[in-house]
Every structure is written in structure tokens, then in C-alpha cells.
């Protein structure tokens, strides 16, 4: 079942205006660089983006923001982006902030066919407003619904032609969860290998969740906070 797609443009050809898309990554770590560039080239607008962060001004989702392609961001933290702030304050951009673990769990719930999950995150806070609270064993939890998206755009380290994916280090983050939650999941990988080249024990995302797999190119993998020790 060969899911290879030849170009980033072809991979996203059917993402329409107004689509809900998930984008993997934590900060700039593990983001689908090629697919974002293709979306920027395509210029698709009015997108709802579910992503833990919103990139920086000149990289990641920031590139889409600059072109005003994003109608709404659903994120846990959006701090590193002046254009984002400008659009938010001017009312051009809608933002929904949700706890990071809730974001992760809601993606996972979709991939596991669970319509909703219970989490204690946000109980007693603004996040709980309008939400159902339920007590189990004396502790309160919020009912949070599974997230689905028209498209999930994820980045893996290696992938095979069947769509099986392996992530590297903390570039894993939301990628496997969003890969499970997309109605159509598009994965870009640093190294695309033939079926059988990845050991079946080591696969993080089974190919059944992945619809298209792209050999990425020109990875910049920008570092947001370069921090080193002295000795």
C-alpha cells in the first residue's frame, strides 16, 4: 500500500479554505516545515490551526500568520510571535487557549475512537467555563471532547512507504497524536525508506493512521532557545 507522494504541493492539494488542520511540533521542534511552506505557497486562507504553538515571526506557523491565512489558532502557548500578537489584539485572529495536556489528550481520544475524556486540568479556572465537571473518587474532572481535524500535518524522522512513522527525541511531542486524529493525515519525513526497512517493534505511528507520506527536503530545524553549558 504505497502512500508516497511526490511533492509537498501534491500532498496538500486538497486543503481548502476554511479547513481545520492540526500541525505537529512543540515550539519549532518537530514541525512539518515542508508542508507549511507548501501551504504558504498555496495561500489557502481562513484556516483553523490546532497546534501547541504558533511558530515565530519568520518560521513555522508564523509564516502562515504573516499571510493572514489563519482564522483561528487553538493552542496552549502562543508567546513568541509579534505578528500573532498584533492580529490578536486587532481582532483579526481568533485564539482558543487550552491546557497542553488537554490538547494532547483530545487528539489522542480521536485516534482511539473515544468521543471524550476526563481531565482535572483547568478545574476551577476559566477553562472550565461552560464545561461539564464530574467527580470521581472525590476529585473533579472536566469532560473534554475528542479533537478531529480535516487534515493532520505531521513531521517524523523516518517513515516507510506504508506510512509507518518513527520520531526522533522530543521532536515526537504532538506528532503521533495528531497523526491519529486527522481525517486525512499527511506526514513528511527526513528519511523515507522502503516497507520493511523500519523494524515493526520500533514504529511509533502505524501506517493505518497515515494517508500520505512525503520525503521532506531542506530541513532548517531552527532552534528557538539555543542554550549551552560552559565546560
Amino acid at each position: 500500500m504505497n502512500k508516497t507522494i511526490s511533492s509537498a504541493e501534491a500532498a496538500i492539494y486538497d486543503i481548502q479554505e476554511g479547513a481545520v488542520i492540526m500541525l505537529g511540533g512543540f515550539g519549532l521542534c518537530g514541525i512539518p516545515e515542508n508542508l507549511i511552506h507548501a501551504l504558504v505557497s498555496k495561500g489557502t486562507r481562513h484556516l483553523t490551526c490546532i497546534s501547541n504553538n504558533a511558530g515565530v515571526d519568520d518560521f513555522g506557523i508564523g509564516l502562515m500568520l504573516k499571510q493572514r491565512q489563519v482564522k483561528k489558532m487553538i493552542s496552549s502557548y502562543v508567546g513568541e510571535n509579534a505578528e500573532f500578537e498584533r492580529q490578536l489584539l486587532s481582532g483579526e485572529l481568533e485564539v482558543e487557549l487550552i491546557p497542553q495536556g488537554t490538547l494532547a489528550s483530545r487528539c489522542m481520544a480521536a485516534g482511539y475512537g473515544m468521543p471524550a475524556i476526563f481531565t482535572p486540568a483547568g478545574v476551577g479556572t476559566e477553562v472550565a467555563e461552560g464545561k461539564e465537571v464530574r467527580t470521581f473518587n472525590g476529585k473533579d474532572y472536566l469532560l473534554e471532547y475528542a479533537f478531529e481535524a480535516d487534515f493532520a500535518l505531521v513531521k517524523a524522522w523516518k517513515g516507510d512507504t506504508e506510512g509507518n512513522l518513527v520520531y526522533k527525541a522530543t521532536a515526537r511531542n504532538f506528532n503521533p497524536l495528531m497523526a491519529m486524529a486527522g481525517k486525512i493525515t499527511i506526514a513528511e519525513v527526513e528519511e523515507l525508506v522502503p516497507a520493511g526497512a523500519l523494524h515493526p517493534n520500533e514504529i511509533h505511528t502505524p501506517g493505518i493512521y497515515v494517508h500520505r507520506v512525503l520525503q521532506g527536503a531542506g530541513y532548517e530545524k531552527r532552534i528557538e532557545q539555543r542554550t549551552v553549558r560552559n565546560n
Partner: protein
Amino acid sequence: MALTKEQIAQRIALELKDGYYVNLGIGIPTLVANYISKDINVVLQSENGLLGMGPFPLAGEEDPDLINAGKQTITALPGSSFFDSALSFGMIRAGKVDLTVLGAMEVSQNGDIANWKVPGKMVKGMGGAMDLVASAKNIIVAMQHTDKQGNSKLLPTCTLPITGLKCVRKVVTELAVFEIIEGTFHLTEYAPGVQIDEIRAKTAGKMIIVDHVAEIKLQPKAGLI
């Protein structure tokens, strides 16, 4: 003498016990890693998907695929593991992390914490803070005792939007260490040379002084970073 930020971290390092899995938040909490005793084994969790976080890399050895929750380049120690964000918060929610150290803007006398939003300012988001405070069984807050205007950050009730309810167990500031028990800040330690009257004056919430109140003792530097 009020403690420096490094000394606050140094004091908190004393709370780490052998065998603990620990999540250190951004800011002063991150510095705690510098002071972990070499006599104990502690594993650091980073909620973006890592157990076994090591020191910052040497220059030239940074890996863009290996960062901590503050998006800083870091390293992974032998015996570490990587996982996705759902499992990361899963182990936090399941109570597998023994100690969580966080910064805060306000803490109330019943242990509520506010650390994510200031009305009127650009709101960047709660990140993982709400998950951490709602789930962790043992939360220590590291913060300055007062804000820049000199207002107490240890309050009867939080004035800022809440991050989590009744979750903070201990607060360490530049002036003092408190345990929060039954709706009261219990002063257990004071910084060397700091008068208890000063602490009382700067603590707006209900405060009592425990019988065995003592001067803060610091862990010698002996850490990871």
C-alpha cells in the same frame, strides 16, 4: 539577607529525595537542577516528552530535536526515554511524578495558584501549567515574595485568574519557606538575617509561625548543569 534566585533553587533542591521523578518548570525551578545532591538519584521529566533530562549541551552539540519544555536545547542522560505529549501528561496525571516545582504570580493561603494570565496584558497561554497543578501530588512554588510594586504575592485569595485550586504544598521565596496547611501559610524557615516581622508584613495571607521555625539551610552546588 534575602536569597538570590540561585539560592531559592538551592533551597528547593533539598526537597528532592532519592528515587524522585521531578518536573521543573521554567525560570527559577529550572535552576534547581544545578543543586541536586550527588548522593541521590533523581530523574527529571520534561513535559514535552522526556524522562532523564541532562544538562545543557556543549556548544556545537545542540540537537534541534532535543529540547526541554522551555524550548532550550538540552541533553538526555543514559537511561532516558522519549514519548509523546499525551503519555507525558498521562504520567503526570497518574501521579507518577513525585515533585513539581513551578513559578507563580500569586499563591493563596489555601494553595490556589495563579501563574498564567494578567488581565489587560497579552495572554500567551497556560502551556502545561494547568495540567501540572491539577495533577501533581506534591507542588512547590518558587517565586519572589512580592511583585515589582512591593505587593505581597502570598494572598488570602488570588486576584489573578486561577491556574489551579488547592494544589500548592510549599512556597519558597527569597525571604521564607512556607507550608500550606488548612488554609494557612505555615512559616517554617526564614532567610538568614531576615526578620520574621518583615516576612509577616509582606505576607498578606493568613500566616502562622511553626514552633520549630529555623533559618534556611542551603544545599551546596552539586548538580547537573
